[in-house]
């Protein structure tokens, strides 16, 4: 039986329509934060259910252009996009669940916030579904503009406004490069559709490629800006630090995945033959990203700023696999996708738990404030330790397996220098992650006892994330048939293959 086209688009449809409906709902007076959160959770759950339904029923690998006469093949639904969409919707759901306590505590949050969150998820999903440069730009801007507002939502705090404004100005500037690059590529190839650019490149490989390379470089500049890689990393600390913690968690966990999702599609499908040009550039970018991010993370006193700086380091790890794509395409691409999942879980858990702890007051900010935390809240300290271990890449967590795939991939593809630099950065990262664990467990200063007790849904969700991280590390050795790491890796490989079947 022919599947109707709308089935493919149901996840996008639910999130988009949900965002618009929430906007209308927010004008009614009797809709409070809790009802808004439940409504948005309903829409996101519908979206993720329909997405998983697509993944299950359409076969292992699929790739279709829904409504190709209307959308002109601008939107593609394949295993790859569905896999990324699952991550992104899950990010939205977990952010709402974790942040609910925080949102209810602060007066400035209204129901519109959830509408913006859904719009942002919608933009990111459209970005990974986009099969055309202008569609991708519009999707990127939908996601970014929603994020700009979400960052500045608590408008009584100057830091939020400053972060929002900085991100708005710099993000728009970076977006311009994307358009410039698209116009160069259109000028050279006569198309902005992703598959057709690839066909043009492979047909005219002997002729002059300067204009396409120039356009590709411009698009990569936007990409490097959005994931906060080395020459464009300075906005990250101020913006992530200025945003409220649930928003930081959302940005750190999902936005990076969405941007990587699009750029991997672009590079793998279109620039496969001319990618060598950028390899040298990326080697230097990675080395500087890792070095600078590690340096920034070491000197931070505030826990939030340390996590943000370390997110720059994680960008560096991801880019290592990005370079190895040239030699071992399938393994490198799937290791990027897997590492994105691992980082997504760890970062969301870490930021979410700190958000929960600091939602009552702003007292616990620096390392010193967490002295003797394990004596006051042993369970929270244990969960925080799990997240730190996973971010540092210690075995028995999912973070280790992610790093393992990336570094072995780098060695296999002959980039030993990058592997060495990456492993050195990992060793350095042990310092700033374990400092928190040491401070929590080996010191005793129980002066501040005003920590929120474990109540509500947020600690439960965070505990589930912590269990998932440990399950990702040791799971498959215990119970073979329950989905674990192998399942994620296999899915990542299938989604990589689905890029090339049309």
């Amino acid at each position, binding site marked *: 039986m022919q599947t109707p086209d709308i089935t493919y688009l149901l996840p996008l449809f639910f999130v988009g329509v949900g965002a*618009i409906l929430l*906007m*209308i709902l*927010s*004008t009614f007076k009797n809709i409070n934060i809790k009802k808004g959160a439940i409504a948005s959770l309903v829409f996101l759950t519908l979206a993720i259910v329909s997405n998983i339904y697509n993944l299950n029923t359409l076969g292992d690998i699929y790739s279709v252009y829904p409504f190709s006469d*209307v959308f002109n093949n601008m939107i593609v639904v394949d295993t790859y996009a569905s896999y990324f969409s699952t991550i992104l919707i899950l990010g939205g759901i977990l952010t709402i669940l974790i942040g609910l306590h925080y949102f209810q505590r602060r007066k400035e949050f209204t129901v519109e916030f959830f509408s913006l969150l859904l719009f942002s998820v919608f933009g990111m999903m459209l970005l990974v579904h986009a099969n055309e440069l202008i569609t991708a730009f519009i999707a990127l801007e939908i996601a970014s503009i929603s994020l700009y507002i979400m960052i500045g939502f608590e408008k009584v705090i100057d830091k939020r406004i400053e972060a929002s404004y900085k991100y708005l100005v710099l993000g728009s500037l970076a977006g311009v490069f994307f358009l410039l690059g698209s116009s160069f590529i259109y000028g050279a190839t006569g198309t902005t559709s992703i598959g057709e650019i690839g066909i043009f490149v492979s047909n005219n*490989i*002997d002729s*002059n*490629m*300067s204009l396409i*390379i120039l356009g590709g470089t411009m698009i990569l500049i936007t990409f490097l800006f959005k994931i906060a890689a080395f020459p464009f990393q300075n906005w990250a600390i101020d913006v992530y630090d200025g945003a409220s913690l649930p928003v930081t968690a959302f940005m750190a966990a999902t936005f990076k995945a969405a941007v990587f999702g699009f750029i991997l599609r672009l590079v793998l499908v279109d620039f496969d033959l*001319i990618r060598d*040009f950028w390899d040298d550039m990326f080697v230097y970018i990675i080395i500087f990203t890792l070095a600078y991010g590690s340096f920034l993370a070491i000197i931070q006193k505030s826990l939030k700023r340390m996590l943000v700086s370390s997110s720059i380091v994680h960008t560096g790890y991801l880019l290592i696999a990005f370079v190895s794509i040239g030699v071992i395409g399938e393994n490198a691409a799937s290791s990027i996708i897997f590492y994105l999942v691992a980082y997504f879980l760890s970062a969301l858990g870490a930021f979410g738990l700190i958000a929960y702890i600091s939602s009552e007051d702003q007292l616990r900010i620096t390392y010193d404030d967490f002295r003797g935390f394990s004596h006051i809240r042993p369970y929270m300290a244990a969960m925080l330790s799990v997240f730190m271990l996973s971010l540092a890449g210690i075995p028995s967590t999912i973070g280790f397996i992610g790093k393992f795939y990336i570094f072995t991939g780098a060695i296999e593809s002959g980039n030993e220098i990058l592997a060495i630099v990456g492993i050195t950065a990992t060793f350095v990262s042990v310092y700033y992650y374990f400092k928190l664990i040491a401070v929590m467990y080996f010191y005793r200063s129980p002066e501040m006892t005003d920590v929120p007790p474990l109540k509500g849904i947020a600690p439960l969700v965070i505990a589930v994330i912590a269990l998932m991280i440990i399950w990702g590390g040791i799971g498959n050795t215990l119970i073979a048939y329950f989905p674990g790491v192998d399942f994620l890796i296999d899915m990542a490989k299938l989604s990589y293959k689905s890029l090339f079947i049309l």
Partner: protein
Amino acid sequence: MTQLSHMDFAHPYFGAFFLLAFGVAVFYGITVVARIVSRRMARLDTEKLKLTIYECGPEVSKQPNKISAHFYLFALLFILFDVEIIFMFPWAVNFKILGWFGFIEMVLFVLLLAIGFVYAWKKGALEWHSIR
């Protein structure tokens, strides 16, 4: 394959590059010259009329009434319809070619904008000084 590495005067883009470099140089040069000229040749005496704000002839006066920031919202809502018209015009010209498909697309577009307008309305953006 990649020809960015060597200098090539016969390259088709060399002329464009030369123009770009020339433009930047001229721009920078004019800025520098203008600064030097204005430093050296300006009349530095202070006169009362010279130091006042230039307002196209009429004397500068303080704004007697403050203009409410509320006008800003009205201007934004005006732009909502303004942009709608811009997109409707080419659609109306090609109405017969686009047919029902174009009609449905335009209805969707107007509906989305109308939802935004209703949102602003419900929030009280059209009532003076009563934003909820």
